């Protein structure tokens, strides 16, 4: 069936092209006509938009070869240093390249369409959660109700933000990393007409990135009294992950979706990301510092990962030294236990995932502090004083008895 169709098409193209080659034509004219047709086909191949066009061009190339193969000797001389077979092969090679590219486009088109669908659904979900958060935040501000109701509102607000951040992390992992898998850079090799429609028809991820960043900045700069340290830690992690993904796929997204405003998009998003990072970082470190202070853990000032580690390290070492001086009292051990609870229960357990994902402390730093803690524990352990006291008391009693006996 396919062969029959091929034969019919070939005959059709041959019939279309026949005529001028017969009769008295000059060799130069034959060469000119061949070159014109060749260039026309080359241009069509380069600008082919779909596989059916490429297939029809295959027939046309075959027709061109059939039509001119009787003039091969002449064309070999006329086209020198190229040859007739050489240029036909080149044309077929271009067809093959374009076919491969079009297959990639088809594949990428499907992926991008799917990602575009995901963007739409994420947009709706983000908007829904934003509405809930905004209305709860407004209710908290206006709250003149009982403390119980206010606590309830704050809890719901925090929960809505948590859900929103979860959604953000999901979006980063499934959606934006999905764009990374699409290998957007492949599109840059393709003719513009091949990518234009795919891009125009799909949702622009730059818009959702921009709106997400702006919303986060607004939240961080508005009423944060209702939020707790773990909220700020989570927001810091989301920001970190967002920046990381932007660094990985930002260039490709700008290339594809930025269009003529690519530079503006870059400036705007990168400036917002910087602003977001500054706000998230400032709020998170301040909240962490406040929490430790409330638990009577006085660290030296810190506002970044290294200074936070240095502050803990220095605190543990100083406390260890101080414990040796308080060996006969329970004070050193009490402060150890207080810090031990915060370190193990909060920093390592409750906040552990954020501490790791946000790289607040590295595994090596955590392990070093754990070792220092063991040392502190050893030094802070209160000594068992009952035996020496009893021994001293017994000795005193004996001495007193001896004295009494001697006097009698």
């Amino acid at each position: 069936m396919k062969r029959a169709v091929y034969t019919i098409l070939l005959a059709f193209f041959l019939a279309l092209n026949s005529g001028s080659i017969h009769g008295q034509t000059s060799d130069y004219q034959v060469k000119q006509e061949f070159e014109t047709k060749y260039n026309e086909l080359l241009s069509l191949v380069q600008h082919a938009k779909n596989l059916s066009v490429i297939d029809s061009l295959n027939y046309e190339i075959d027709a061109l070869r059939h039509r001119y193969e009787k003039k091969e000797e002449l064309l070999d001389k006329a086209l020198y240093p190229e040859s007739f077979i050489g240029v036909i092969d080149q044309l077929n090679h271009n067809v093959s390249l374009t076919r491969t590219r079009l297959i990639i486009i088809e594949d990428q088109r499907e992926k991008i369409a799917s990602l575009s669908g995901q963007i739409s659904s994420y947009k709706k979900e983000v908007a829904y959660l934003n509405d809930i958060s905004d209305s709860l935040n407004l209710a908290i501000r206006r709250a003149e109700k009982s403390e119980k109701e206010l606590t309830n509102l704050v809890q719901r607000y925090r929960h809505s933000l948590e859900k929103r951040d979860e959604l953000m992390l999901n979006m980063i992992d499934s959606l934006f990393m999905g764009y990374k898998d699409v290998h957007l850079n492949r599109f840059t090799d393709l003719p513009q007409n091949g990518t234009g429609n795919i891009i125009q028809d799909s949702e622009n991820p730059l818009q959702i990135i921009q709106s997400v960043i702006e919303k986060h900045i607004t939240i961080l700069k508005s009423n944060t009294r209702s939020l707790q340290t773990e909220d700020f830690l989570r927001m810091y992690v989301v920001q970190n992950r967002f920046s990381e993904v932007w660094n990985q796929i930002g260039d490709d997204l700008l290339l594809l979706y930025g269009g003529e405003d690519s530079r503006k998009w870059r400036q705007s998003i990168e400036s917002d990301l910087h602003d977001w990072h500054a706000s998230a970082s400032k709020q998170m470190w301040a909240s962490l510092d406040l929490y430790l202070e409330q638990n009577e853990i006085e660290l030296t000032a810190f506002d970044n990962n290294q200074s936070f580690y240095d502050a803990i390290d220095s605190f543990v070492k100083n406390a260890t030294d101080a414990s040796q001086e308080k060996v006969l009292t329970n004070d050193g051990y009490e402060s150890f236990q207080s810090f031990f609870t915060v370190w193990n229960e909060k920093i390592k357990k409750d906040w552990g995932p954020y501490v790791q994902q946000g790289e607040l402390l590295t595994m090596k730093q955590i392990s070093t502090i754990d070792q220092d803690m063991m040392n502190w524990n050893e030094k802070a352990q209160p000594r068992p004083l009952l035996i020496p006291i009893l021994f001293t008391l017994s000795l005193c009693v004996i001495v007193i008895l001896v004295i009494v006996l001697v006097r009698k």
Partner: protein
Amino acid sequence: MNMKLSHLFPVLLLAGTITVASACNKFIVEQVNYAQPIESVLEPNEKGVVQDLRYGITFNIKPFEQKELGDQDSLKIDNVRLIRNAQGLYFITANNFRHVYVMQPVESALELKKKIRISEKRLVAPAFNLRDGEVQLVKTEVNEVISLSDEENQNERKEKKS
């Protein structure tokens, strides 16, 4: 006077011997084929200069133009058609010409070897082909082929006269 000639005889003999000897030492490669497989179609610039980059020749078409068109400013040459046969002779014509000029290359010049009259009417779209080593003129507008080899050309003329 006779004395002087007899004195000069050995000198002339020596000069003659040297000339013959040097002629015998001339290095010649024979059976060279200069044929151009396909004609060159060259567009003259504003000074009338045509340049064939592939086969390496540059000349001015104005002298041909002067002979063919005279002072008729209304007639213009679009493209100069040029082909070379196996002997190295250039065949030159153009639209609005009545002749094909067969030119022999000499030192920094082209020398007219033959001027072949093609028709009374000016050529509209002439073209050259090379077939079996022979140059043909194709009048593409009327699908007519004219052989430009000496014998055939003459035969054609005779046939036309008869």
